């Protein structure tokens, strides 16, 4: 128990590489554990604790976590090295970064692994008008095939595009400034604090009357 909350225990059933810097794990979902798309859990392993947004839908029998290898990050390293079948404990769900239906267009904006809660939303049937994923290179465009078919407008934004001609070259703020009609929208922002700050200030400037929901990862 942590802060009076129930601890759950779950086995790692699968682990896969998403990119050079990122991997996902699937945990067996305990029957009693329920959550809403967009919520997170606090994972505990070997005296470490860290928040992870769930990337799977609440209807699935497993929980997917999208984990970035952090340089010197003991937990990401430990989970990356843990054997399949290892039991991890966690508690939650936490957070209010859930989908709020409205008449305004929905614009989801992620940087890096900030895509995780949006994957949960999309897999749960939520269909955003725009889904922007800001990454450095095409190597980081995990889940892109899934999103291409699910989101009306899935837009990878590459800040270091190298040779890619396929995707938008620039930051998510560049795309919003250049291509999004200046209207009131519902913005959901998840990922790096710098991205969240830059998009928020842009929305204040260009998209008056918009709503903003945020989840800051790091």
């Amino acid at each position: 128990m942590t802060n009076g909350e129930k601890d759950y225990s779950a086995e790692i059933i699968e682990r896969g590489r998403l990119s050079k810097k990122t991997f996902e794990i699937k945990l067996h979902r305990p029957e009693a554990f329920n959550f809403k798309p967009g919520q997170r859990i606090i994972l505990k392993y070997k005296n470490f604790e860290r928040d992870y947004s769930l990337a799977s839908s609440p209807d699935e029998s497993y929980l997917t976590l999208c984990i970035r290898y952090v340089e010197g990050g003991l937990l990401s390293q430990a989970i990356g090295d843990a054997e399949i079948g290892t039991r991890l404990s966690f508690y939650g769900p936490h957070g209010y970064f859930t989908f709020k239906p409205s008449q305004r267009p929905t614009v989801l904006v992620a940087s890096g692994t900030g895509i995780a809660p949006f994957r949960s939303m999309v897999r749960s049937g939520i269909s955003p008008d725009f889904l922007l994923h800001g990454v450095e290179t095409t190597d980081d465009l995990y889940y892109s095939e899934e999103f291409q078919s699910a989101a009306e407008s899935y837009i990878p934004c590459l800040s270091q595009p190298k040779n890619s001609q396929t995707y938008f070259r620039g930051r998510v703020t560049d795309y919003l400034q250049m291509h999004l009609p200046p209207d009131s929208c519902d913005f959901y922002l998840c990922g790096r604090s710098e991205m969240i700050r830059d998009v928020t200030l842009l929305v204040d400037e260009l998209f008056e009357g918009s709503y903003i929901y945020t989840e800051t990862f790091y």
Partner: protein
Amino acid sequence: MKIYTGTGDRGKTSLFSGERVSKASKRIEAYGDLDELNSIIGALIAHLPSDQSDLTVGLQQIQADIFVISAWLATTANSPAVDALEPIEEKQIVFLENVIDRLEDLLPDLKNFILPGGHISAAWAHLARSVCRRTERHTVLVLEESDDDETAEQLKKALIYLNRLSDYLFVLARECNRLHGLSDIPWKRS
């Protein structure tokens, strides 16, 4: 995670219901008052005698209630964000009324106005009371401009709660003086 995001550097902030509003707006003013009240209650707790654990536990419950009221003040009418909020319960108001009644039984009847002050803990309780009254006034301003929906219903309950909390803090100030063997200081015309 960093504590600073910079999203409020130009004077706006986000409500729980998602809107971007001026930091000088009435809602922000009202829940800013609650934040101040909560901090003052923290200072008050820090000055309570160590054997008064009942008072401490009660005040910490009030601090938790203040978070709930703040969330309602940060949510506009007809927002789907309401689903995530805890309702303000009648029992929270009844709790305050019961404590007021219990403390009043311990205290001498009041025949004059009293000067805020005495023991340091009583002084903090009076400060909390006056900030609570300001919070109440600012909550009225928010309510006067609210649509009549669930958030308005909750703000009406919040007003009752804040009205009762101010009374409780007044009685608590007197109790703090009593616990330290001090009498309230009566107001005298100069």
